[in-house]
């Protein structure tokens, strides 16, 4: 059994051999991956800007601008972008994180030129006016209420990040603080747009049923005329070493307590990140994983448990262990057991079989991930953002090299109490159970 490896086949192991790359004179990076299974295509455009490029006082600008990118340009009326794509049978959306802002259209492959024209248009011709920005600020404030203010998990993560980081912009939420959203000025937004929405700060990724050469020509035709801008100011903030455990308590109306442990770890630029990747799999991936088996099945302390390794974060970020407690369980008991499990990893080598199981899981997921055009495009872009998309092909070989001793070493080095930020959600009394018959008549 121990020699049973999950190698699915050379083709599924290597994505890089099938990717075509080009860089335009204005600095725009283009990646094309042909996939012929269906007559559809995903276009994604990734800008190297997120909340890590912001400042306190104007947090949330990247996300607000993402919303405003669906407003007017010199050629288009507000929201016409979306209506045109949808009326061409396409789907579209955008998302913002701490590290990047990405826009995508998924549509019939023959409509790709249309999507390219529209994306090129809003890269340089966006019109920003009070009449459209003010209602959109209110929309984003509603979004903040939905995701953070009225959401116990959202509130807990915000507080935890704010405690874990002192110097680095990962300290504030991607959506921004409420007062910053409210006070964002047209000048701030325009400046953000002009600084970051430049071809030399973007990556175009096309995955689907397309001819790579013709596609690169099309992208060049659409984006080639756009002038490059000055290189944006790099993010220079480095989080200073943590000198001891930090702990935040969030009290909110809720029904179950929740706990997050967060450790500062390196990203994919460090060889240790692969061992951490395997470690997070061993801890919480699947029902036979250590934390799931011990804490959810055997001891019944938690409703669920999740370990997350920030492998592709642009700057070093947080390795988190999180879970919701079952009713009447104590946070102290959960913490004691987590401590014991981490100690076990740090002191005793995992068995060959357990190590192989984790690698099998990672390798299978790498293949499953290629089942979706959208997801493949996203992987290519995220690896390119942090370095070079070619290193995607190095992922599985690096995972295969991880040994039991590596797991012990990274657990000892990174998963230590002094480097930990703990977030605890303390329910201030359960949300009342809803019932009640119709209490008023509407008409």
């Amino acid at each position, binding site marked *: 059994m121990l020699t049973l490896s*999950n190698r699915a086949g050379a083709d599924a192991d290597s994505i890089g051999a099938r990717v075509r790359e080009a860089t335009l004179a204005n600095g725009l990076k283009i990646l094309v991956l042909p996939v012929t299974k269906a007559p559809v295509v995903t276009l994604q455009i990734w800008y190297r800007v997120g909340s890590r490029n912001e400042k306190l006082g104007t947090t949330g600008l990247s996300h607000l601008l993402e919303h405003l990118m669906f407003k007017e340009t010199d050629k288009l009326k507000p929201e016409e972008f979306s209506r045109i794509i949808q009326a061409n049978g396409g789907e579209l959306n955008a998302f913002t994180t701490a590290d990047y802002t990405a826009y995508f259209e998924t549509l019939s492959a023959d409509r790709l030129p249309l999507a390219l024209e529209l994306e090129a248009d809003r890269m340089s011709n966006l019109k920003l006016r009070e009449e459209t920005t003010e209602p959109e600020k209110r929309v984003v404030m509603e979004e903040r209420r939905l995701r953070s203010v009225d959401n116990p998990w959202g509130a807990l993560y915000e507080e935890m990040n704010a405690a874990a980081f002192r110097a680095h912009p990962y300290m504030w939420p991607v959506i921004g603080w409420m007062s910053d959203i409210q006070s964002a000025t047209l000048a701030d937004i325009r400046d953000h747009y002009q600084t970051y929405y430049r071809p030399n700060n973007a990556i175009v990724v096309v995955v689907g049923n397309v001819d790579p050469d013709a596609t690169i020509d099309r992208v060049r035709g659409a984006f080639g005329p756009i002038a490059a801008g000055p290189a944006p100011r790099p993010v220079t903030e480095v989080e200073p070493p943590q000198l001891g455990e930090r702990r935040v308590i969030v009290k909110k109306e809720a029904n179950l307590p929740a706990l997050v442990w967060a450790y500062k770890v390196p990203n994919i630029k460090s060889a240790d990140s692969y061992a951490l990747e395997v470690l997070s799999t061993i801890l919480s991936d699947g029902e036979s994983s250590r934390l799931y088996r011990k804490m959810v099945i055997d001891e019944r302390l938690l409703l669920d448990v999740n370990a997350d390794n920030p492998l592709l974060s642009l700057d070093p970020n947080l390795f988190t262990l999180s879970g919701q407690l079952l009713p009447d369980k104590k946070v102290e008991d959960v913490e004691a057991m987590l401590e014991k499990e981490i100690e076990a990893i740090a002191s005793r080598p995992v068995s060959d079989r357990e190590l192989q199981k984790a690698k*099998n899981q990672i390798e299978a997921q790498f293949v*499953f991930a290629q089942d979706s055009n959208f997801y493949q495009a996203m992987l290519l872009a995220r690896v390119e953002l942090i370095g070079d998309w070619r290193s995607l092909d190095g992922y599985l070989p690096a995972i295969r090299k991880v040994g039991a001793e590596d797991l012990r070493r990274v657990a000892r080095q990174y998963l230590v109490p002094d480097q930990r930020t703990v977030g605890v959600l303390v329910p201030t009394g359960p949300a009342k159970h809803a019932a009640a018959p119709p209490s008023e008549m509407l008409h």
Partner: protein
Amino acid sequence: MRRTAVMAATMLFATLSLAAPARSRAGATPPVERSVLASGMRLLVIRQPHLPMVVVSALVDAGSRFDPAGKEGLASLTADLLTEGTEKRTAAAIHDAVDFLGAKLGAAAGDDYASLSLTVLKKDLEAGFDLFSDVLLHPRFPKGEFARKREEALAGLEAEEQNPGAVAERVFRKTLYGGGPYRADPGGWKETVAKLTIADVKAFYQAAYQPQRAILVASGDVTMEEMTELADRRLGAWKGQRAEVKATQPSPPPRAGVIRVERELTQANLVWGHQGTTRDNPDWYALQVMNYILGGGGFSSRMMSSIRIEAGLAYSVFSYFVPGKFPGSFQVVLQTKNATTAEALRRLREEVERMRAKPVSDEELASAKRYLTGSFPLRFDSNAEMVGFYSQVEFYGLGLDYPDRYASLVDAVTQDDIQRVAKTYLRPEDAILVIVGKQSDIQLPER
């Protein structure tokens, strides 16, 4: 780099996804084959050889619509327990075997049906299908695992109390459906789940999990011959029982009214709606086009234009008809800060009234049709979506030629059809409004 890590929780989307669009387009029909096995089970195979993986699902007509009164949550708990021990394997042995293959195996119940799904590398299909068929045919429902899964189900319902949208939906269902089949979310209610027994689960399994009630669908690097051979070998012994399952009868629709649920929140979470219709209603396609224009079409919808784009009152607002074997619901869902509840509701009702009163424009109609038909192939982006799509095509009896027919079904819809279905299926006078939020801060519009 693993699936969950990439789709990070910190990712903020410009809008919530469009409410389930329906679709079709010539030339995009996937290569699907169908057969009926000796046991009466139907088998559909979609060959997708581009990646060395396979997704297999068994849809079983064992959804929560069969939950007896007082046992809401039974179908869901039964599905949850399939993978928690068989006659020859313990729960731990199943979990370990699945994880060692790097596979995913899980079951869940929805309103109409339950599904058991396996995602596995092609090279492990034999081993994976062995586990799949074992849990489908020979679940043991051990006492310890039953107690654990019921406790988890109860805790899950407790966690749901923290989600105002889920609370609003639960109260809406309970009010709309009365004693009818969709009265509870498949997860059930705390008071009924607490009383479920192993005997209930075993009896439900015996009655509902039968080959003639099952549809096996596989998509991936696999052929009809391979799947037939596997199914004959592993599932051939599955015999139907005589037992019968019956859904409770639909209740008459309730009176219109407002239900307020008190929560310490800054937003009012609203569900507004009334009874909808069944999936097999011939008006289904006209309803899809109408709803796209009204509130289903994301940034192209009238409700989004009025409530979000024009007034900035909500991040998300959408409407939809829930399909079902029995009449589902029509609902509009939105959240807005307490102070703007009345204004958002006024705009919501205004759009419903306008849809009933005036024909949609030529341009609106054409755009809606182009979206619905043009986005059809996007349904097949992955093997999992392919399996989900064809499971439903077979379950609701739409026919394997459905992808070919879809465009003409949608294109045939006229402005008159839209007027007619708007007047028939939008009934503001029957609407139930559920508001979860801080009631002292929430005013309703005057009428």
